[in-house]
């Protein structure tokens, strides 16, 4: 009970910071704008292609799937955008506390390291989720103007995929933020780490050896594939949750051990 209160106090404090500075608004705008733009491009391309293929079927024809042609590229593009956006959400989480000395406030009040780490993680993930939610306004015309309302399920799984993927990156970014007192350094390191995680997926080659397969399994983007197509696989959800959990564990260990090394 008290731990819940402590975590929520940290979440609230971080949100105050995000929205007390331009950062949240800028990110919300950029994210939503890019979301809309990618959606528009994919949708136009889809209309063009389906018109070419099946005459004037108004896009909702059964031959070409909206999921395959619009949602999947959209969510995957947004996954790339997230590589840039998430370091901005996470870089200051701990680095700034260390620089300001406020880590001493947190460490000498009846809070555990876990509560602080989780609070910060939920704050960033919450804001990221909020960004996704806001960017869904881009879909409104689809429901308003389409003759037959599109299926909402693939949108839901896509959003879930993006959120889980984002949470994994946020956990890693939170950990990296504990390593330095310079938030710019934390941001750059996080970005590099995210790129590395992305490129792991490129090792995916069915003919490759078990080691390479194992590495490819760690790719944070690969596990989005099915969900962006509307297929929810529990394995992928578990992957993202354990990935996030591991990142947070590292963050907690790092915060704790720094006191010992001090």
């Amino acid at each position, binding site marked *: 009970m*008290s731990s819940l*209160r*402590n975590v*929520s*106090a*940290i979440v*609230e*404090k971080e949100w*105050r*910071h995000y929205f*007390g*500075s331009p950062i949240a608004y800028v990110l919300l705008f950029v994210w939503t704008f890019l979301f809309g733009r990618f959606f528009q491009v994919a949708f136009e391309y889809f209309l063009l292609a389906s018109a070419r293929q099946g005459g004037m079927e108004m896009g909702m024809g059964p031959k070409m799937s909206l999921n395959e042609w619009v949602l999947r590229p959209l969510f995957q593009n947004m996954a790339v955008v997230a590589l840039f956006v998430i370091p901005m959400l996470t870089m200051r989480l701990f680095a700034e506390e260390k620089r*300001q*000395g*406020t*880590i*001493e*406030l*947190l*460490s*000498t*009040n*009846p*809070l*555990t390291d876990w509560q602080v780490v989780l609070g910060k993680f939920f704050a960033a993930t919450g804001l990221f989720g909020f960004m996704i939610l806001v960017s869904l306004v881009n879909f409104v015309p689809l429901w308003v103007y389409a003759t037959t309302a599109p299926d909402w399920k693939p949108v839901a799984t896509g959003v879930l995929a993006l959120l889980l993927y984002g949470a994994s990156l946020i956990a890693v970014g939170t950990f990296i933020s504990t390593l330095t007192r310079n938030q710019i350094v934390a941001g750059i390191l996080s970005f590099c780490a995210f790129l590395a995680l992305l490129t792991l997926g490129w090792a995916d080659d069915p003919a490759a050896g078990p080691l390479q397969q194992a590495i490819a399994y760690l790719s944070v983007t690969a596990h989005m594939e099915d969900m962006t197509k509307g297929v929810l696989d529990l394995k992928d959800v578990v992957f993202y949750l354990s990935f996030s959990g591991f990142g947070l564990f590292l963050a907690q260990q790092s915060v704790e051990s720094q*006191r*010992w090394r*001090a």
Partner: protein
Amino acid sequence: MIEVVNLTKRYGRHTAVDGVSFSVQKGEILGFLGPNGAGKTTTMRILTCYLPATEGTARVAGFDVFEQPLEVKRRIGYIPETPPLYPDMEVADFLSFCSKIKGIPGKDRRRKIDEAIEKTRLVDVRNKHIGKLSKGYRQRVGLAQAILANPDVLILDEPTAGLDPKQILETRELIKSLGGEHTIILSTHILPEVEVTCGRVVIINKGKVVAEDTPENLTQRLRGSGALRVEARGETGPLFDLLRTVPGVIGLRPKGDAGDGVVAFEVDAEAGRDLRPELARAVVGAGHDLVGLSRLGMSLEEIFLQITTTDSADGAAPEAPAAAEAPATEAS
């Protein structure tokens, strides 16, 4: 309430705190004195569970800082050396955040925040951003944060640093008023602060305790035979001859011209005798204007310097130096 036994902290090969032991009773205000780098902050950080000790134990309210840090933290209010504040928060919001992480129940929060704001005189700035406050106000926000939950133990690392004189006085009053029901450890370089507020002083130098006593005893012990400073209007020669004849005077040194026709002398009196009435009568009786007459004791400053600079490194208690050798300062 606080028990520190043989506490040692090493940073790499550097020993910052070296076998420090002391204890603080409930309701007591302990002054923690020492020059820069003595290890005051380090000791306080160990007491507040921010740093682990290399050796030794510390218990606060019966809880070991290492074994049960959460229990200790629940009972402590702490102002670090530089108050840890979020510059982009407003004062009231910051205190509200603190009240949550200190576990103050929701229904009491408003009242406790108002009380702390009231006590630390932050009413005027409660809705200002902390980043826009002056250093002194920030220091006060730090203090408000420390007393917010009305903790049993207050650990204050240089609580008056950066305050203006009026604020220093008010803060000392506040600290004094908190004593009794709270147990307080306060570190400072400002010795009058200790004289005014603390019931007991621990002087630490290079990580070791070099003296521990009440401020009065420390001053007393080192005060010597009670030298006096006399300032009178007149010529040095006749006044010198006059003062020399006062019974009980065992030493006399002219201290030169104090301006405006006033000359000064330092007078050593026999041990245990207060010669001020006799000296005054003698000067005035001979037709001179008596301008000043004060006791020359060692102030804590001098004791402090004496202990921390001339003391041998093994931390033995210093010998009482003759007061007459000490530089003259007022300590009435």
